[in-house]
């Protein structure tokens, strides 16, 4: 059974159609990558799934329930978490607080103003565990805004996974990282999404082909292919979309240079 299903989803901003009639199905436990040239609508697609934008037409089903009319916080409560392309953390809060806030709802604290967070043993233990997992344990008391870029990206990921969501959307998780940082980040992503359903937008083809079980190629808001990596690599329409670039397992190599 598919965990997430998009049925004929379209999104226009005014006259401009950004997403055109996208249908997509992502199975439980799948590691799915969405690729495509700049401006293809990858981030918009994430924003539609996570409820940041409303769809113009079509349905989005999560665990079989329609979510396209829900608010972001309602979707998040169902177990769908996301990270952002541009780092989106709580800059004045400590690293520890960032993660703990990510946990609060999933641990059923809701809007309570009668529990003291410092007294909640399970909450704090779980926060520590997430910090350990993302390797920011020794940074726990720093204001998140003062972390190095790669650390902020790790924190971004940590907030997304803290709640233990079944499905995690990662928008360009290694963008702007050095090669070695990206390598560590990919290892981290593998570790923390173990046993979960992952959908990620990524430009780095070596990472995409390394991590993904299935790949969807989005061009000008349309899905031109959605298949296992081996078939995507050989797909002529995909080759064409990348303007004569050859999509290989090692990355996109320009042949026209």
């Amino acid at each position: 059974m598919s965990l997430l299903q998009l049925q004929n989803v379209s999104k226009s901003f005014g006259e401009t159609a950004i997403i055109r009639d996208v249908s997509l199905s992502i199975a439980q436990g799948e590691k799915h990558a969405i690729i495509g040239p700049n401006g293809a609508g990858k981030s918009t697609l994430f924003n539609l799934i996570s409820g940041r934008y409303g769809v113009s037409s079509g349905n989005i089903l999560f665990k079989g329930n329609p979510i396209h009319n829900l608010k972001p916080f309602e979707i998040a409560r169902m177990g769908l978490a996301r990270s952002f392309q541009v780092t989106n953390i709580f800059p004045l809060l400590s690293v520890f607080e960032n993660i703990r806030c990510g946990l609060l709802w999933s641990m059923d604290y809701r809007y309570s103003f009668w529990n003291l967070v410092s007294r909640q043993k399970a909450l704090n233990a779980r926060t520590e565990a997430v910090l350990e997992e993302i390797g920011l344990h020794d940074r726990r008391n720093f204001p998140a805004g003062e972390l190095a870029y790669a650390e902020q990206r790790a924190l971004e990921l940590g907030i997304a996974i803290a709640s233990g969501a079944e499905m995690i959307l990662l928008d360009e998780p290694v963008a702007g990282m050095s090669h070695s940082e990206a390598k560590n980040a990919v290892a981290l992503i593998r570790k923390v999404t173990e046993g979960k359903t992952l959908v990620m937008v990524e430009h780095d083809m070596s990472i995409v082909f390394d991590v993904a079980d299935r790949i969807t190629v989005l061009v000008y808001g349309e899905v031109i292919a959605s298949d296992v990596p081996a078939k995507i690599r050989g797909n002529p329409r995909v080759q064409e979309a990348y303007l004569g670039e050859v999509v290989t397992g090692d990355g996109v190599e320009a042949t026209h240079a």
Partner: protein
Amino acid sequence: MLRKSIVWIVFAIVLLVLPQIFTSIFSISIFTQMTIAIVFALSYNMLLGQGGMLSFGHAVYFGLGGFLAVHALMMIENEEMMFSVTLIPLVGGLFGLIAALFIGSFSTHKAGTVFAMISLGMGELIAASSLILVSFFGGEAGVSGDRTYGPPFFGYDFAQGIEVYYLAAAWMFVATLCMYLFTQTPAGRMANAVRDNPERAEFIGYSARRVRFISFAMAGFFAGIAGGLFAVNYEILTEENLNAASSGRVLLMAYIGGLGFFIGPIVGAIVLTLINSLLSNYTTLWMLYLGILFVLTVMFLPRGLTGFLMMHRVPWHLGKLRLLAVPYTLTSMPGAVFLLGLVAMIEMSHASGSEFVYLGIALNPDGYGSWAFLLAVTGVAFYVLRLTLPRLRDAWSEANTITRKPDHAAKESGGQS
């Protein structure tokens, strides 16, 4: 945990002992004003500092709570109700809460400019209607009551200023404790998160609007308690207590004290109450100085007076605080002369007649000599002040140079709450 309890115990002892040291009626009246201002300023900081909501109309909840509290006093006086005056602040708080629940239901939809404009509009609306709805607000004259009726509280009837002080201090202590504990609850932590990044909060399961609404309701409740204390203390409320000027004053308190710290608004409330009640004895221009203090704080101390004090935590932990003593003294001497010179010129331009005595020096506002003298003194002081700055700067960076584990000191500087 123990360290925190000690802070609260010391706080309680200070509140108990203070009027035994400064026993004059005047100082006790100032202490009472301070306690009221502290509750009000802390409640305001639940919005601005903790929740990221810039309100220009927070006096509405203070004022509405206060007005209802005066009506409750009148009902006790007329024997329509029988309860102790000690509970009056709670009446104010509940009415502040009700008003905040109503207004917050639409004003907390967005933070930022939208929230600020709605708060301003609601503030003006309520202040204007208070002059029209005479039966509740009493028009220009306001409403007044008498706190000495009702069943005495362990023999006290609150006729004495000191009795009112202890009542206000007790309420302030409890309110402060509650507001502090609120910051440590899930709703309080999420208020900070929503302040920092409302969008991200939505993606971790929280409605930013709901989080703001809860903080807003709490802030209204505690502002109402402050209004109730005001009603008990002054026994009169007028339109002045809920208008834009009052809303502005509480903003100044919180900002000058420091928004990023729980104790910031307490510091601000104390400083502003002192300026208000002491400085106004010496000059009619005290509002001007308050305005200057505010502008200087915004420009040079964005984290407020508390932020300035907290900047010294790193040198203190490094054991280098004494490196600053001499440079501070050297800078503050010409600094003080410069400020006094400026103040002299401001006061002299405001003075009428040909005689103006300032710090024992007879000056003539109409004569060029006095002006030239003041300009010279101020100018030289400014020049000397500038000369001392490089040394202060060097000492500051030396005092902040970490000689211990790098982790530790950085941790100390990151004490935002």
